[in-house]
Structure formats: C-alpha cells, structure tokens
C-alpha cells in the first residue's frame, strides 16, 4: 500500500510503462526515413533516392506490412545475383541484408492482384518467369495485393514507405504489372495479360535501357 494523491499515483503508474525497444526502434527507423528528402513519396513526383537508410526502412515496413506483399527476387548494387526467393514477410525471420539491397534497386516491377481474379492468374506464370529471367537486372519484383481492405491498406503502407504509392493509388487494375523507376519517379512500363511473355520481356528490357 502507498500513500499519495490520485494524480501522483496515475503519474507513477503510466510513468512506469514504456514502449518495447523493438517497436521503438522500428518506429524510429520509419520516422528517420521520413526525414530523408529523397524519401518523399511521388505524390509530389520527386525522384526517389536509393540510399541504404531508405532500403532498411523499406525492409522494416515490409516486415510490418504482413504477408500481403512479398518480394520474389533481388540483385545487389554490384550486379551479383542474390536470390532471396519467395518470402512471405509477415512475422517471419527474413534476411535483412537481402531486403535492404533489394529495396535499393532502381526499378520496381509491381504486380497488382486480387485473389481469384482471372487476369491476375493469367499473368502469374509470366510474372514468375520474368523474375527468373531478369535476375541480372537491377529490378525488384513485388506484389500489390488488393483483395480486401486490410490487404489494400497493408500494401499501400508498404508502397508509401517505398515511395511508390503515387503509382499504386487506383491507377492499376488487377493483372497489371507496372515497372516503376524509383530514381525519376516515372512509370516506365506497363504490362498486361494481353501481352505475351517475350513481348513483356522486351518491354521491360527497353524500359530499363
């Protein structure tokens, strides 16, 4: 038992509570990414910097964003192949170095999808093949899941932190793959189910040169 007024007791009670260091670190990293002028989302249409801090923050955001968005391949800045496989990020241990490097890739190929959408299903094999064949390019492949409100929200949060939300807000339909240049903030290629794989590969290849 202790003696004191109610205010003191409330102050003591709440004063003893603090955020866990892990969560604090995550939030700090996200806020730090926001201080970087190059991290401005492209709703302002500004070029996106690809520094390591942005990459780390994006990796953290990926972990936070749950399994609705996952990367399927990456290549490091030196062009060495670094396959990180298909990694559902929700609550799983991931290779942070891999994520950071992948997040530094200049180009991002985002496949927009809704579970059960025939167009998205039709593009899927070609998308997977592109991941394999374009392994030597500085491109990160990802999925933007729009199946339900929660997945849309999580995917949107991820896209915001990556600085590609400008391209992901209602612009693309399910079954579309957009190739985004994070350095210039432009959509440099758009692929749909109406294109065959060789044509898609050519479009991607041309966009990146």
């Amino acid at each position, binding site marked *: *038992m*202790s*003696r*004191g*007024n*109610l*205010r003191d*007791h*409330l*102050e*003591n*009670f*709440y*004063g*003893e*509570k*603090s*955020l*866990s260091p892990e*969560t*604090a670190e*995550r*939030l*700090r990293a*996200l*806020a*730090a990414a*926001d*201080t970087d002028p190059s991290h401005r989302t492209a709703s302002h249409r500004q070029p996106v910097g690809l520094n390591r801090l942005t990459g780390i923050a994006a990796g953290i955001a990926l972990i*936070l964003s749950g399994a609705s968005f996952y990367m399927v391949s990456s290549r490091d800045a030196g062009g060495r192949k670094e396959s990180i496989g298909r990694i559902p990020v929700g609550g799983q241990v991931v290779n942070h170095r891999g994520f950071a490097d992948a997040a530094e890739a200049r180009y991002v190929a985002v496949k927009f999808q809704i579970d059960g959408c025939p167009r998205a299903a039709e593009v899927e094999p070609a998308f997977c093949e592109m991941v394999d064949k374009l392994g030597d390019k500085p491109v990160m492949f990802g999925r933007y899941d729009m199946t339900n409100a929660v997945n849309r929200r999580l995917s*949107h*949060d991820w896209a*915001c*932190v990556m600085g590609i*939300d400008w391209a992901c807000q209602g612009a693309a339909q399910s079954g579309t793959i957009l190739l985004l240049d994070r350095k210039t903030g432009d959509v440099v290629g758009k692929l749909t189910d109406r294109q065959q794989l060789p044509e898609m590969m050519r479009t991607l290849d041309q966009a990146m040169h």
Partner: protein
Amino acid sequence: MTGTSGELGDLMQRGYRFALSLTHDSSRAEDLLQDAWFSVLRVKGPWSRSYLFRTVRNRFIDECRRDGRVGMETLQDHDNAEAAVDSQSWHDDDRVFATNGAFDRVLGNLRAEERAVLYLSAVEEYTAQQVADLLDWPRGTVLSMLHRTRGKLRQLLDVDAKELT
C-alpha cells in the same frame, strides 16, 4: 519530420502511454501506436503530441467500430456537472492507495474514454479545454467525466483495498 532523436523518443513514449490509457493492454497499445505512426507518416502530418494523440484516438475508434466493440461515447447529458468540479480536486485526498497491481486492475474496470480523460488530465496535464479539443467533446462534458471518473476510481480503489484486507 523534425526534432531530435530524444524528442522523437519522448513523443513515441507519450503516444504509447496514451494508447495504453485507451486500450489498457500493452500489446494492443503498441499495435495502435504503430497504426497511428503509419498514418502520420502517410499524410506527412506534423510530429506533435496533439496530432499523434488525435490520430491514436481516431485509430482506436476505427478499431472499436471494426470489431463491434463499444468505443468512445460522449456524455452530453452530463454537461451540467461543471460546477461540481474544482481545480484542486486532484489534491483533496491524501489517502491510502492500493499497490500498482491493484491500481492496474481498477483502471481496467474503467471505460476507455474515462481512462483517456484521466490520463490526459493527470499525466499530460492537459487543461479541460485542451482535452475537449482533442476528444471533440464540449468542455463541460470533459469536466463532468473527469469528476465522475475520479469518484469512480476512488470508490473502486476503496472496494479493492477492503477486499485485500
């Protein structure tokens, strides 16, 4: 995003404690704060205490609605209790209180908005008008709720203390 790392850390902890006052559950409070943090980042809102608190509270209401829980409610019918409240009432009782564990238990019996008003007033030292602005309630409602909640808390603590003895 402006401010030093220390200021950011302080803001984070305050945001967490406010979320905790609403949820009375540490893991839910962390989730709520993260959610609010994302929102502030997304809209590039100011890194101020009041903005973060407001975002946390809005997220909490969204969460309550989504889960079908009873969320924040206003007490418009208690506006006339303003006269019953005076600024010294925090200090009018130097008395025996239960331990922190019991205090935790008793706080858990209060409603979310009651805990939030108590927290803002006692810990953050917000004035009634500031609390009213933050919660979008009339000032009289805040004062009456504060008065009733303090009374309720004392009553619950007395009951708890009697049960212990």
